[in-house]
């Protein structure tokens, strides 16, 4: 499979002091949806804008479809569709007018009416951009990057701040683009977005890739795929249950406690749970709540960094 994006040793320093990206290597293959997952300030936008040719790297190399910025800019611009983290399109233009404007920049644009249908904005064709809802605006932003009929689509946090329904609509648009043979590079700090949408994910933190693989591979790397979470009825009486004791419960791989919430990474819940209940009963500890779920990329991030993706 041929490579759409290749970065090597990417480094970006702002104003001679902030190191936003520090030595980042990346390959995105044609036809895949690749996600950069990381918390605020990890360097996602910086990385993607360097690849888009909007920022220059302090050091390192970027190739997009084997072409380079500074040499093949005109050709590259025709091939890429770009959605910035935040763009406010002209509020006084209509949806149709905005798409026709963007289409006019390309040698071989897509039909604006067709793109409008794909992002389900046909009903809003004659509405002013200023009157659109957040979700509609975001779909229009994506439409503006699709109207150039790109081979590679960049989406910087496409669903941040959107309601669940709008997020799903956007995911559908991305999937449709991929089915038609497009390549996608997106950034997100939602682990569910990365898991559901991306073929491969690079987790970045402090300007470096700390893990790379398919969502499955990354979750597998935890060694166990289930998480058992519980809180105690009387946490004050048992300030710390002692990781060692809990870790002895069958198939429990690791124990984490945070603000009274215990999270066990568990290989086989059907064996671990009865043992866990026995263990607690033996010590006279009562539970307030218990739940089990599948492990997510969030757990991978926490395991690697000890922090959460979103610091709420």
């Amino acid at each position: 499979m041929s490579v759409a994006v290749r970065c090597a040793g990417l480094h970006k320093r702002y104003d001679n002091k902030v190191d936003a990206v520090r030595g980042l290597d990346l390959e995105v293959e044609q036809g895949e949806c690749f996600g950069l997952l990381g918390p605020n300030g990890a360097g996602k936008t910086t990385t993607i804008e360097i690849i888009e040719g909007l920022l220059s790297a302090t050091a390192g190399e970027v190739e997009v479809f084997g072409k380079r910025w500074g040499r093949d800019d005109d050709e590259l611009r025709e091939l890429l569709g770009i959605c910035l983290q935040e763009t406010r399109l002209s509020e006084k233009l209509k949806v149709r007018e905005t798409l026709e404007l963007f289409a006019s920049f390309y040698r071989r644009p897509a039909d604006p009416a067709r793109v409008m249908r794909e992002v389900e904005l046909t009903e809003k064709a004659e509405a002013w951009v200023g009157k659109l809802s957040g979700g509609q605006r975001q779909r229009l932003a994506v439409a503006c990057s699709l109207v150039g009929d790109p081979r590679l689509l960049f989406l910087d946090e496409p669903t941040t701040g959107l309601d669940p329904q709008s997020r799903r609509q956007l995911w559908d648009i991305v999937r449709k683009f991929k089915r038609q043979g497009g390549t996608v590079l997106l950034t997100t700090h939602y682990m569910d977005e990365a898991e559901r949408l991306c073929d491969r994910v690079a987790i970045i933190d402090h300007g470096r890739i700390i893990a790379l693989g398919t969502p499955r591979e990354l979750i597998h790397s935890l060694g166990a795929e289930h998480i058992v979470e519980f809180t105690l009825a009387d946490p004050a009486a048992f300030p710390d249950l002692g990781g060692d004791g809990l870790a002895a419960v069958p198939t429990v791989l690791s124990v984490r406690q945070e603000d009274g919430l215990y999270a066990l990474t568990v290989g086989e819940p059907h064996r671990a749970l009865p043992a866990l209940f026995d263990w607690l009963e033996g010590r006279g500890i009562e539970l307030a709540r218990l739940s089990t779920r599948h492990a997510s990329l969030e757990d991978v991030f926490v395991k690697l960094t000890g922090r959460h993706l979103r610091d709420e």
Partner: protein
Amino acid sequence: MINWRAYSQLLLARSRELSREPEVVFWVFFFPVLLAVALGIAFRNKPPDKVDVAVVEHPNAARVVRALNAAPPLAAEVIGTEDAARQFRLGKVALVVYPGQVYSYRYDPNRPDSMLALSLADAALQKAAGRADPIRIHEQAVTEPGARYIDFLIPGLLGLNLMSGGMWGMGFALVDMRVKKLLKRLVATPMRRSDFLLALVSSRLILMLVEVILLLLVGRLIFKMVIQGSLGSIIVVSAAGSLSFAGIGLLCASRAQKIETISGLMNLVMLPMFVLSGIFFSADRFPAAMQPFIRILPLTALNDALRSVILEGASLEAQALRLLILTTWGAVSFLLALRLFRWVN
């Protein structure tokens, strides 16, 4: 080389935005017309107001009042001594006459109305007392078209409008697009930057045409202004002004990252010219030492050229120096802006 499809879409988009922006419609079209009408009415040429003169109580006072009232615009009245002094101090009367063996006049040499009253009152009193003028006079009162305040004002307002139009239409608009990351978004497409700038400038020139015609029509229809120059020359001068300020606006916008910055810069550029460049009153009123500086300001050159063409019907060749000043400002700003301009952040 221009990509005409992109250029026409950009121009169309810009025109749509402007026409859908109520503020633009107000500032570009209504404001100058309102200003012209308001100032035109406030400063319309009318017979001089009456000039009040106080005559202090005296046996001869009635005769003096009669003699003064026969010389318009003087309006005399008999008042007590103290009252007269007070009214003079408050500026309600321009002159106080004290009849007597020796007449005495109280006047203020710094007040034009006081000086006028003094000379008219003295002449009237001397004549009434039997003075014969040694030189025979034939008076000829003429009102020249084009010499009224409104005639002076309309070209000045046009110049003002072209300046603020260029600064807002380029300077403010571009920074606004930068703040909204729209510039960055456009640069991320194959759009050519030259097409974009050309479209922006074209939309300025279209607005310029509308502004020129609108103000001239207002002058012509409401104030019966006589337009001496050809419409062609007026438009050439206006276009030169418009382009010059578009260049300056572009330069101001080249680095500003915030709306506050561009607003400050625009005020810094426009305010001195607003005062110095002869919009509401002639720039000649400033001291001679300042004149060389004032003359090379783009708005002074534009206003002078507009007045010369509109009011005197002067030829374009006669405006060569002023057009050169405008072109130089525009070209230097534009070239500098091309080097400094930040498209991405």
